[in-house]
């Protein structure tokens, strides 16, 4: 594996991280924020696999990535459940409306 190829992979992971963080900062919709979290986790997966490739321990990074995928799916399920509950009880998915709640 050439060094420049690894560099491309790590730069891609960093750029995905940036896009996910930007999405979390500017999104108003709760479901869109869960999408941004998914992008963040995918960047972590790409960085992990690339690191395994760099250390020549791809099997270890694969087993770690498996755990990350399971945890990521659970985070998505719980986040979506929370968003649906908020929509049902409060009537909106807008995070700006949620921040006005008192009590």
């Amino acid at each position, binding site marked *: *594996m050439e*060094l420049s*190829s*690894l560099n*491309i*992979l*790590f730069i*891609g992971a*960093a750029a*995905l*991280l*940036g*896009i996910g963080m*930007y*999405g979390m*900062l*500017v*999104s*108003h*919709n709760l*479901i*869109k924020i869960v*999408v*941004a979290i*998914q*992008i963040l986790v*995918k960047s972590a*997966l*790409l960085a992990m*696999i*690339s690191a395994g*490739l*760099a250390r*020549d*321990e*791809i*099997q*270890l*990074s*694969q*087993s770690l*990535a*498996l755990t990350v*995928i*399971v*945890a990521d*799916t*659970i985070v*998505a399920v*719980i986040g*979506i*459940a929370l*968003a*649906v*509950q908020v*929509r*049902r009880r409060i009537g909106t*998915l*807008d995070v*700006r409306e949620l921040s006005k709640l008192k009590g």
Partner: protein
Amino acid sequence: MQIISIHTTLVSAALLCALQAIHSKRLLISALWLAALSALLSILFYILGAEQVAVIELSVGAGLVTVLFVFAINVAGDQELKGRDIIPIPFAAGLVLIGILLLIRFIVPLEPPLRTSRSVSFVETLWGLRGLDMLVQIVLIFSGVLGLLRILAEAKAPLEGAVTEEVAALRERDLQALAQQSTAATERISQATPEPF
């Protein structure tokens, strides 16, 4: 050189998908772009030699999570949100750009890869070295199933309440109609009966 170009193409396409997922106005389109991002990343993982993760990412990331998103968008509705931003977009973009450029500055160029002589199989790594994590994953899967059940249970509850209220309202209306009929009949009988001497 060809491998590098394939990597560059796949990473650029993945970045494009991620940008579209953030920028698209409709949530359904956003979820579909996220599925495309998962599929592209799984192709990349396969090329890099992580076949098991590629298969699981394709089935879970592009399949299960997308189905969940579509279900949630159907239940919660795709409302367009307008108004003032919490954080101004140029400020957020500048902040993230500076952070990412600093991160790239620190990690690139990479040191030459450290080659280790160990070569452990995937099965040995997964079940031998990280057996405890597998137990944690089982617990996580159960909690996820409970979360999903929670969504489904709450989706049904208002419907049942509405049906019960509707039946009660119909029964109340029937009872009122019966009471009016009986009152009218009593009046008719009392009018038809002659006065006693």
